[in-house]
């Protein structure tokens, strides 16, 4: 158990650092790579929370899928514009102030509520529980999700179709 705070600390440093890099670096391509790092770190947090299946989904869909799509998008747009996409920021002061205010508000909110100190022991396999729930109680949203993917696929194709 003594490993857990250590792992959490390390992951936190990686996550916050890579997240800051995502929003601050100039090179858009590097930002995407840092995002991939942050997403991978999140998968690690999921592992710490005994959610192996979600960690896998996170890696597959996010770190794999999303980052791939974004990289593709960047490549396509850079080819269209024939130049490297710069990544500049605006109104850093006000953004920081408002984001900081939201953070302070959230932290105050978290500190105020009485929260569980220790997690309850696991009963059974989390992955199995997810699978059971998905195909029993949540089967309808699950199917709707499939429909959503179909629509997304068609929509994205329609938007990004070549100019005629």
């Amino acid at each position, binding site marked *: 158990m003594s490993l857990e*705070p250590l792992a*959490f600390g390390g992951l936190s440093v990686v*996550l*916050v650092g890579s*997240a*800051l890099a*995502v*929003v601050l670096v100039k090179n*858009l391509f590097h*930002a*995407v790579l840092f*995002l991939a790092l*942050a*997403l991978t770190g*999140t998968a690690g947090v999921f592992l710490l*929370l005994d*959610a192996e299946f*979600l960690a896998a*989904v*996170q890696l597959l*869909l*996010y770190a794999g899928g*999303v980052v791939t799509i*974004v990289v*593709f*998008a960047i490549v396509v*747009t850079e080819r*269209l*514009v024939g130049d490297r*996409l710069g*990544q*500049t*920021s605006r109104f850093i002061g006000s*953004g920081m102030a*408002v*984001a900081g205010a*939201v*953070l302070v508000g959230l932290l105050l909110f*978290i*500190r105020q509520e009485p*929260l*569980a*100190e*220790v*997690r*309850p022991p696991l*009963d059974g396999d*989390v992955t199995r*529980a*997810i699978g059971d*729930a*998905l195909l029993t109680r*949540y089967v309808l*949203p699950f199917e709707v*999700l499939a429909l*959503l*993917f179909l629509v997304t696929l068609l929509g*994205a*194709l329609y938007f*990004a179709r070549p100019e005629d």
Partner: protein
Amino acid sequence: MPLQAYLILAAVLFAIGLFGVFTRRNTVGILLGIELMLNAVNINLVAFARFNGDAAGFIFTVFTICITVAEVAVGLALVILIFRIRRTATADHLDLLRG
């Protein structure tokens, strides 16, 4: 680690993502900020699910991840479309809604 630690971590990530949405000029950059915020939400969901022993939170996470992916796909398609029409990926130039 207590639940509080996870929530604080998620709050920090959320704030960083929000900051990115505020400040990035490039539309792709804004999308990256949104991804960070959603990620923070996912951490919250999983942490609550684990600490409360309720599988629903895990299921929700599955759904949010999937929907996020779909959203990113559509969002990037829109970015490319805007790029084609307006020849820009800078959000500053997209002000058709100006009053």
